[in-house]
């Protein structure tokens, strides 16, 4: 499986022209926002006549991907490389379980083996950048210490005060420091060499151990709305029915009850995290956003305009469930996260983390239907989703000094 595509964010790589080429390629590769394709027939007279009548001969092409429900990781695994490719490229569904985005583990290993592999994966670029950054910090700290030592000496001998500097000609800055002569780069290379040597010695053939992992929300979105995903049961004996999936995905999110209740409906509840997350996921997907995990920025989701290969995410979502009836919260067996208002310290923290990376924090409030209003029965079908509602509150720091005119 060679899913490797050039990394847009690799710094220092290429100028504007290269970027343009890359964007062109991306526009081609990621042309479709959903796995379904609309295939236009070749232009014909019949087509144009039908067009006048509002009818068309456009064919809907369904890729019919396949995945396996894995109860342990509470996810759906797509192991067929072709399917993984389709789901990633058409709407950025899923994530390689050993990669930061698309499955690239095998490509990385192959790259390491083929010594001198020029094209770095994003993971490798990141590792190198981190090593350089570390070395820069060490260099700078050493330079600062040297200048401080000198200042101390002058103060002791001449009584002059030179304020200890943290910047200056003798101290490298992020703008001027170059990694070329650094030991870190060499070290990183050495580590890579070693990585290259290792597998070569034992000659073990590379087997791809990676899969594309879909969250339950992603899987349900694909199979329920678009009917383009078949989910097999964990033993891979049969394709699960929609009703089976609906109940299974809900119970997967609940703490296992032992022994299992005789009637699976008994476990259904409105504050099931699957339902809350699904409502949010579906809402933003239906508006055309690409929705990905936000764990690295301590939020629930990131919203991408077209997809992670095109732009950075500018919006970071925190899902805040709100019980319509606080009594339901009291009696619930689930301790839902973010269901009570944050402390200011926590709000500041997540807001600061996100504004550091130019993301705007969005609190997504999802109301949980009151049991006194809506009968539990509606949980037996997705019709219950019509009783949840989603709304956003945007949080930003307000800086009075900047708002004066």
């Amino acid at each position, binding site marked *: 499986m060679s899913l490797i595509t050039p990394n847009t964010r690799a710094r220092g790589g290429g100028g504007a022209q290269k970027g343009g080429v890359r964007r062109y390629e991306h526009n081609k590769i990621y042309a479709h926002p959903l796995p379904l394709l609309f295939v236009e027939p070749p232009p014909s007279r019949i087509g144009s006549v039908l067009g006048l009548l509002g009818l068309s001969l456009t064919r809907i092409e369904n890729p019919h991907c396949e995945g396996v429900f894995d109860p*342990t990781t509470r*996810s759906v695994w797509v192991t067929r490389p072709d399917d993984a490719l389709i789901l990633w490229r058409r709407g950025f569904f899923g994530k390689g379980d*050993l990669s930061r985005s698309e499955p690239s583990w095998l490509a990385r290993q192959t790259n390491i083996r083929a010594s001198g592999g020029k094209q770095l994966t994003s993971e490798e670029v990141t590792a190198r950048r981190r090593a350089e950054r570390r070395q820069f910090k060490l260099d700078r*700290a050493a330079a600062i210490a040297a200048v401080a030592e000198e200042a101390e000496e002058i103060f002791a001998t001449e009584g002059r005060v030179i304020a200890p500097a943290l910047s200056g000609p003798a101290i490298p800055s992020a703008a001027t420091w170059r990694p070329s002569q650094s030991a870190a780069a060499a070290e990183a290379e050495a580590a890579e060499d070693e990585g290259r040597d290792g597998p070569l010695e034992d000659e073990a053939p590379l087997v791809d151990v990676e899969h594309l992992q879909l969250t339950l929300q992603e899987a349900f979105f694909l199979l329920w709305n678009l009917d383009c995903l078949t989910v097999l049961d964990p033993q891979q004996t049969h394709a699960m029915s929609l009703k089976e999936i609906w109940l299974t995905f809900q119970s997967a999110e609940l703490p296992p009850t032992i022994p299992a209740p005789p009637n699976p409906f008994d476990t259904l509840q409105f504050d099931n995290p699957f339902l809350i997350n699904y409502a949010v996921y579906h809402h933003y997907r239906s508006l055309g956003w690409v929705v990905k995990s936000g764990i*690295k920025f301590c939020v629930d989701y990131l919203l991408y305009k077209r997809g992670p290969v095109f732009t950075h995410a500018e919006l970071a979502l925190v899902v805040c469930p709100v019980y319509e009836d606080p009594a339901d919260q009291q009696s619930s067996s689930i301790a839902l996260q973010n269901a009570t208002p944050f402390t200011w310290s926590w709000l500041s923290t997540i807001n600061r983390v996100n504004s550091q990376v130019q993301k705007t924090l969005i609190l997504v409030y999802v109301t949980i239907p009151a049991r006194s209003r809506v009968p539990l029965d509606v949980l037996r079908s997705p019709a219950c989703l019509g009783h949840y509602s989603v709304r956003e509150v945007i949080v930003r720091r307000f800086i009075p000094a900047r708002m004066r005119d």
Partner: protein
Amino acid sequence: MESHPSFPVLSPFIAKYPRSSSSLFQAYNDIVYAQQWVDVEVLDLPSCSRGAIKGKKRGTEETLFAVPCSLSETLNFAWLQDAFAQLRPQNVTETITDAKTTRSSPPSLYLAITSQDASIVYYKLSQGIVKPSV
């Protein structure tokens, strides 16, 4: 899952601690296949109801410990201290007699935090007040 190459190593822990099996599985695979630690072993942390991972970064000698947890769990300070207390450089799985003495517990561990989309992040927890590295 059963056909995954990690399954034979992990299955006792998956069976013993079903609620933490997801994060152990993800963390173990990431450490073995993506981070490529060597001499990797799974240790039993009964007080935290999960398996933990011991190993070394390639080309280094220091033994490192990773304790997996999932984003949806709720931990507490005592839980983290227990994790330290139960991790020992030597044969950790043998009976722990004096779990409370921190003498032999490692100075730091990595908390491997997993989410359902198979994302994983690592944070280093150190005992005591350890000032930031430069």
